[in-house]
């Protein structure tokens, strides 16, 4: 029997606001434990939350970017449960009335497009962190993260494979980073994903029993965990077993999911509207104001790059994967007007340098204008493509402009035909045997003469001119 997977993802994305969602504490990661806290986020008696409007605006951006309908009124609710990292004994979240609903994200699947539905996007506060002492039976609580704003993006169970899941996550991640509302750092937990997965015989409408997967902190792990879990469920079903509805943790080292075994019993969170907060009213004017400020989104940018710059879909994909890279590329093209060459240089040599140094385009020592000038110099024949490779490396190393590097190294190309003809003539004279062989049909020797010419000019000869001259002169014309 052929099975198909049914997957829904819940993504928590930390909003990049300077302050927390309900108090003025900093959201900065990595501070000394409990240094970014105040009576409000510590859940002390009598204190009250005041909503950070920026969080609503960031969440609205994500809602618009994922084609959601923003509700005119939404409200915060309390999710009640006891845990030491939750100082109030409840998390302020949204429940019955979330900020936005009914959206979708488009994926490219097998050359076509597929919509993955977004059920809802809501705002909530993050919890703190427990630090367990390895040597003593005690735990410490760090509440720096308590009250850091999150949005939860819940997908419809529209995803059918682990690849689609990874693709969907990458799309969400890309949009969040493009909007500059989330830093997307999965290791620091700014972008977290839980998955609901079940399988069913292909063609069946009803869903199978699902399990919830947690603890996957990279795109790759999400994909691996889903692959494992789909196989596990299939094995159970094929052997006549039944799937147990439960939460399972991904173990990276083991490459398997394991049941939490009752550690998280079925909770009754007793949600109810938070009486300390008033409903959030979002009118059309506010939405319009946010919409006007929206940057071009990755997918639109990709499509524009393909049509405007006539580059391949693959190149457009690489160049738009990072907003800063796309911006750099457009700056280069604006100056040199050579989109194809610009793409090749950027994706080739420049990215190679950056990758070697584990840097991003934001730290690239070559100014966009310098790369554009270099491309112009190649185009004008002032330097050869081969010389440019050395020049680019030097530009990257020193941050100098191409003209400076060329001047320092005397790397200007020799394009003087008369001078080159003289050089070639003496090479031909010095190699009578090779000339005879060439003329006898050993055409491969052409390369030998090119090499000799380049060697004689320390590589500065314009290769095109050398080629043309050699063809003529070897033929005895």
């Amino acid at each position: 029997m052929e099975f198909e997977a049914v997957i829904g993802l819940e993504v928590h994305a930390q909003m990049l606001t300077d302050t927390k969602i309900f108090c003025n504490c900093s959201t900065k990661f990595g501070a000394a434990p409990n240094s970014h806290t105040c009576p409000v986020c510590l859940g002390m008696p009598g204190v009250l939350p005041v909503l950070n409007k920026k969080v609503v605006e960031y969440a609205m951006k994500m809602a618009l970017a994922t084609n959601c309908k923003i509700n005119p009124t939404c409200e915060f609710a309390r999710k009640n449960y006891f845990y030491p990292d939750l100082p109030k004994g409840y998390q302020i979240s949204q429940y019955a009335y979330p900020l936005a609903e009914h959206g979708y994200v488009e994926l490219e699947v097998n050359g076509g497009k597929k919509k993955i539905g977004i059920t809802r996007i809501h705002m909530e506060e993050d919890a703190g962190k427990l630090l367990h002492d390895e040597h003593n039976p005690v735990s410490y609580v760090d509440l720096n993260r308590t009250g850091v704003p999150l949005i939860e993006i819940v997908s419809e169970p529209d995803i059918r494979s682990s690849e689609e899941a990874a693709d969907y996550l990458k799309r969400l991640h890309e949009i969040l980073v493009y909007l500059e509302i989330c830093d997307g750092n999965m290791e620091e937990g700014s972008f977290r994903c839980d998955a609901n997965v079940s399988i069913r015989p292909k063609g069946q409408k009803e869903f199978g029993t699902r399990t919830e997967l947690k603890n996957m902190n990279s795109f790759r792990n999400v994909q691996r965990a889903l692959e494992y879990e789909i196989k596990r469920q299939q094995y159970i079903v094929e052997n006549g077993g039944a799937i147990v509805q439960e939460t399972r943790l991904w173990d990276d080292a083991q490459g398997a999911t394991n049941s939490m075994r009752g550690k998280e019993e079925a909770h009754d969170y007793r949600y109810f509207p938070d009486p300390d907060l008033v409903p959030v009213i979002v009118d059309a004017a506010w939405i319009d104001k946010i919409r006007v400020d929206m940057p071009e989104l990755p997918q639109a940018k990709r499509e524009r790059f393909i049509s405007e710059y006539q580059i391949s879909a693959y190149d457009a994909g690489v160049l738009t994967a990072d907003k800063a890279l796309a911006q750099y590329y457009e700056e280069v093209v604006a100056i040199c007007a050579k989109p194809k060459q610009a793409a090749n240089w950027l994706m080739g040599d420049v990215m190679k340098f950056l990758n070697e140094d584990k840097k991003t385009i934001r730290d690239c020592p070559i100014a966009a204008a310098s790369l554009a000038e270099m491309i112009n110099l190649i185009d004008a024949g002032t330097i050869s493509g081969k010389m440019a490779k050395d020049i680019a490396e030097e530009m990257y190393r020193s941050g100098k402009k191409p003209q400076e590097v060329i001047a320092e190294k005397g790397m200007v190309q020799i394009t003087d035909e008369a001078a080159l003809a003289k050089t070639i003539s003496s090479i031909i004279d010095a190699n009578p045997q090779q000339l005879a062989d060439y003329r006898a049909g050993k055409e491969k020797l052409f390369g030998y003469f090119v090499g000799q010419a380049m060697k004689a000019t320390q590589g500065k000869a314009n290769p095109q001119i050398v080629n043309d001259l050699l063809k003529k002169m070897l033929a005895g014309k």
Partner: protein
Amino acid sequence: MELYQSTIHELQDKIKEGKTTATEITCSVLQRIDAVEEKVHSYIRVLKEEALAAATDADKEIKKGNIKPLSGIPVALKDIVCTKGLPTTCGSHILHNFVPPYDATVVEKLRAAGAIFIGKANMDEFAMGSSTETSYFGPTRNPWDLERIPGGSSGGSAAAVAADECIASIGSDTGGSIRQPAALCGIVGMKPTYGRVSRFGLIAFASSLDQIGPFTKDVEDCAIMMNVLAGYDPKESTSVNVEVPDYRQFVGKDIQGWKVGIPKEYFVEGIDPEVKAAIEAAIKTMEKCGAQSVEISLPHTQYCLAVYYIIAPAEASSNLARYDGVKYGFRAAGGDLLDMYRKTRMRGFGAEVKRRIMIGTYALSAGYYDAYYKKASQVRALIKRDFEDAFKKCDVILTPTTPTPAFKIGEKTDNPLQMYLSDIFTISTNLAGIPGISLPCGFTKSGLPIGVQFLAGHFQEGKLIQVASAYERKAQVEKRRPGL
């Protein structure tokens, strides 16, 4: 007359005329506390040293001519408002050692107005009660009869004013916790509109109902206190930015031609005959003031108690979840985390608090939410509308504050339902979010005070001051002092 017996406005006049000082007033009140506190037990903590130091500072300011609205006035704070650096217990074992690192907004405002904090007043644990008997620190007694309760939950604040252990005090009112003890102690108590006085730093019982208000010896003092307390607070999301009038301008204004609504649902069986007679007399006095009484209907009155006892415990069950022994307050030793939670909350909370946490938890549980919390919220909207409709027909509403005078200590502790009924006339106000005031309207034959309550529309505290002041002047209720 002793200084401690005076009102705010009398003392302010004396200070302005240079006839007394903040230190003299504070010492007078502290002496009074020394004399009667053992009998009444108004306070969880008397702030003797702090008050004397504050009085010294106040006198320096007064000498410079810097006289503020409450300069040199000893004010008691219900131990539910957070005071920076001073223990704030909420009447509970679980917070017996809690010292807030911040002041409640009202504390900041009172201090800025020159008030001298004389003590933290006793209260029902977490404000859950109508008699101040559920306090971890023992009951407060009614100054008029030490065998009886002072009302609650702000019983300590009310008793302190009635026993002249302070000049004015601060309480909080979730279902009648200011007005009911004011009535039973023979003083003035106001619950302002929800959103009028900041809740920041008020330890939450039921967030959508809680409101801070003053206890005073007369209506003019109530206006003075409200001038200090009222106002928008950006630290509270439910605070409302409505202009604050000078409440004192309403004192002494006549109410000629006003319509006073008498809700027929409030005059049913169960009211003590002496209370009933006093209220009927009050209605007559209103007519003598030139007002006209009109019968009105608040048709959903019979559901108020039920709605309240779902919404308030539901919110409380969540608000009190933070008292888990992890961060502050009492912690019981336990084997593991769950064991520590259980023992801390089992030993840290008293019976009434635990009862309400359980009721609230139940009302919010999956499968019961719609039938209880959601339904209660819907009925609450109807109760609110009852008042909106009523205020189309009248300027203010007059009711008894309580169905009976103060009852005996221990009389209702084993019967929570009977206890809950003592708030029957005050609860609807909180559900509707409107303001209410209680002031003395007479005494029973045995010498227990009786209170009359006036209610007005949202943010109409001025109207309440005006009608209460007019009544106070016309009725000339006999000025008695408890025989302590």
